[in-house]
């Protein structure tokens, strides 16, 4: 194993030196092989893969040199005369037992890694990752930064995707709010989802965990290098599956503390007073932003939805009613997820916005009404 491990270390060092020019800010993107491993688990996976590749290549070459030798030598055009032997119990037992032994040799180190991967105990920081169509939500549940909560969405502009602008090097691998974690700390990741199954994949950490609606699963990582690492959603989750990347910034302990206090101040400033009575223009302006961030992907900017999949909001009876819309927003229905995670102000704003857009005209809703409906 040591030979394979050493190879992985060399790769990692090479990657670090390549990215060194940018102060370690951007890890090098892999092209032929697994991403340079940045955690002990990713390192073990990297070595396991090297081991498997070498053993399998050796067997492949051995078996097929016999085949190509006979293709070359034992052809009729070269005057080869067919032998007539077949069935040889000794040979058959040998070529059953030897693969069995090889398989056991392969399984032993893999078993060790499986056990290590599943050990999520004694984490220093616990983060809940929530997949939803088509963005990630991060909630810092325990450890330094507890209480921090934000959404993380694709930052690549549509103009680049549609080819109207040149693509930048981090095309489709950039987000508005990256996940920030401290270096050399065991981070437990709890995954869940709001709507369909997603998968949180960070290749450099050797972590991939499905995010399943209604269930919590967990995994962990301990990043041993500072830098920015990029991954993507790995489980088909609908039309924008390719457009919900994951970016993790691994920072030093001091930088992390600084980020936590900055983030907390920012969140306090953003908090709304739920008892304030909002004016309609205020609600409309806020509602438009909430709509664009959360609703537009399915119900469309035009409010027309997508026929057969997502209902239109323009002219909708549900939107026109007060109680039904509040209930659906809070509890979800079929493909529509619950939006409980939004604040009362955001919900009231988006409700008012949908009631007064695209020809709808159905009055306004105040945050207090959502507060009351939550019970």
């Amino acid at each position, binding site marked *: 194993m040591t030979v394979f491990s050493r190879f992985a270390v060399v790769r990692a060092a090479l990657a670090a030196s390549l990215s060194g020019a940018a102060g370690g800010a951007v890890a090098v993107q892999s*092209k*032929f*092989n*697994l*991403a340079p491993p940045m955690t002990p688990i990713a390192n073990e*996976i990297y070595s396991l893969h090297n081991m*498997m590749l070498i053993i*399998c290549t050796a*067997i492949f070459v051995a*078996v097929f040199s*016999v*085949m190509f030798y*006979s*293709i070359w030598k034992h*052809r*009729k055009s070269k005057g*080869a005369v067919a*032998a*007539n032997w*077949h*069935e*040889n119990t000794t040979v058959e037992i040998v070529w*059953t037992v030897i*693969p069995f032994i090889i*398989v056991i040799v*392969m*399984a032993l180190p*893999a078993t060790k890694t*499986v056990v290590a991967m599943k050990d999520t105990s004694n984490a220093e920081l616990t983060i809940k990752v929530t997949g939803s169509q088509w963005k990630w939500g991060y909630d810092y549940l325990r450890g330094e930064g507890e209480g921090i909560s934000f959404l993380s969405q694709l930052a690549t502009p549509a103009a680049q*995707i*549609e*080819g109207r602008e040149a*693509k930048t090097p981090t*095309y*489709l691998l950039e987000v508005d709010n990256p996940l920030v974690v401290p270096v050399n700390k065991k981070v437990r990741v709890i995954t869940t989802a709001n*709507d*369909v199954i997603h*998968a949180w*994949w960070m*290749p450099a950490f050797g*972590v*991939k965990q*499905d995010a*399943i*609606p*209604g*269930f919590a*699963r*967990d995994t962990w990582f301990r990043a041993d290098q500072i830098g920015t690492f990029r991954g993507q959603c*790995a*489980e*088909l989750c*609908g*039309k924008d*599956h*390719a*457009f919900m990347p994951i970016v993790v910034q691994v920072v030093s302990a001091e930088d992390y503390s600084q980020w936590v206090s900055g983030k907390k101040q920012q969140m306090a400033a953003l908090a709304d007073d739920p008892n304030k009575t909002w004016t309609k223009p205020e609600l409309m302006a806020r509602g438009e932003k909430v709509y664009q961030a959360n609703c537009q992907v399915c119900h469309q900017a035009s409010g027309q939805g997508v*026929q*057969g*999949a997502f209902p239109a909001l323009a002219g909708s009876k549900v939107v026109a009613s007060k109680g039904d819309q509040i209930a659906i927003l809070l509890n979800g229905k079929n493909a529509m997820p619950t939006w409980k995670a939004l604040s009362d102000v955001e919900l009231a704003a988006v409700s008012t916005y949908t009631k007064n857009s695209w020809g709808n005209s159905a009055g306004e809703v105040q945050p207090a009404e959502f507060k009351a409906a939550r019970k």
Partner: protein
Amino acid sequence: MSAVVHSPTGGHADHADHAHDHPHGWRRWLFATNHKDIGTMYLWFSLTMFFFGGVLALGIRMELFQPGLQFWKPEFFNQLTTMHGVIMVFGAIMPAFVGFANWQIPLQIGAPDMAFARMNNFSFWLLPPAAMLIVISFFVPGGATAAGWTLYAPLTVQMGPGMDLAIFALHILGASSIMGSINIITTILNMRAPGMTLMKMPMFVWTWLITAYLLIAVMPVLAGAITMTLTDRHFGTSFFNAAGGGDPVMYQHIFWFFGHPEVYIMILPAFGIVSQIIPVFARKPLFGYASMVYATASIAILSFIVWAHHMFTTGMPVTGQLFFMYATMLIAIPTGVKVFNWVATMYKGSMTFETPMLFAVGFIFVFTMGGFTGLILAMAPIDIQLQDSYYVVAHFHYVLVAGSLFALFAGTYYWLPKWTGHMYNEALGKWHFWLSMIFFNITFFPMHFLGLAGMPRRYADYPLQFADFNLMASIGAFGFGFTQLLFLYIVVRCIKGGPKAAANPWGAEDGGLEWTVPSPAPFHTFETPPVVK
């Protein structure tokens, strides 16, 4: 293995027997009860679906030619990947093997026809309506289902009516497969020529017998999974919805309990075809006939206890991961035994390399690569890194295209003289092989690199570091696609004419009973059973 002592056609070497004449014109096909006619229809049906699924694949590769969205919206792209998978698995590969079974099993065991001739008709004629549902689903609101061929809940709940059409189509195809399997098992167990014991049956018959049992065991499981999806969608059940006490992961368990045996359903008959061809062109008996039979049976049994290796990233307990990892790795052993057997059969043979042999040897070489990547993916820690990446896409195309499809090509060239009475054009056949082989590898080999480097599958658009290999794969895919038109040309040309084929055009010694009847095989064969010593 066996020798025939009897007039092979039972005295009916001429075409239709006047006392039992069969309908002509369209009635011959609609009311067909003859295994050869039904086999022909199966083969044409699957070839049509193969081209349809292939066009969808080219749609995928067009979009992935370069980063950015050029041709399709992502929602349509997802329909393409989903329907490409559904059509190739259920519409092309599976019916093609049933077509081979219909043609060859009665000829190889010396039976006059399949056991249930009218059910045989029905199981074929279920296919066109199913195919029509699939085609129609593209034109309903919301389009065809875009939930992936695995149809994972709860994404399926978000789909439009195209999802329901796909569910109905799969139900019909499943019913057809179950009937076909019952027919095949009954035929093989009851209608073998006197003297043909089970352990004297040709390998293709053996592999199909085992495959038919797999089909009967797992097709109802798929039907259950998609029926639960249907009721979750429309009747308020919550089988796969946590809010109602269900579990989305349960869908995956049920699906893969079907899905893993399903991949062996698509490869075991391919093993059978290759095991028939290699000895004939090596002019040497199959090295270990008995061990081939036992290996096939072992693979079939193991296929029932490995399903959750498709689900390592769902978050199973340690013991679950270890069990499914070990069980999966065990499959490498009987598969290895098969490869060793084929190589040992070739060793010290006297080989010639006509097109069937080229495809069979190509199969062994390229399929084994898919086998090795399968072993690598069986390791749970590596799988967690590679699950749902292009590495998996590369792996299953190595076993399904270079495996099942190449074996189907090998079998077609091998038996085409028997079916048509003409020899195909050997030079064109060789071109077809080499172009297929080269373009196949240009298309799928780079996908290993893409997956290792971290490109997830089912992506309509991708980051820039994946651009070069995607470009290469797209070029290969178009080459591979157009090469298959050559196959169509060769087959049509062979049907229309060509040098007359002898009864035993490959000079197969003990190659099987099918070579004892004239070419083309007369409408009725073995009305008096041959005797096998």
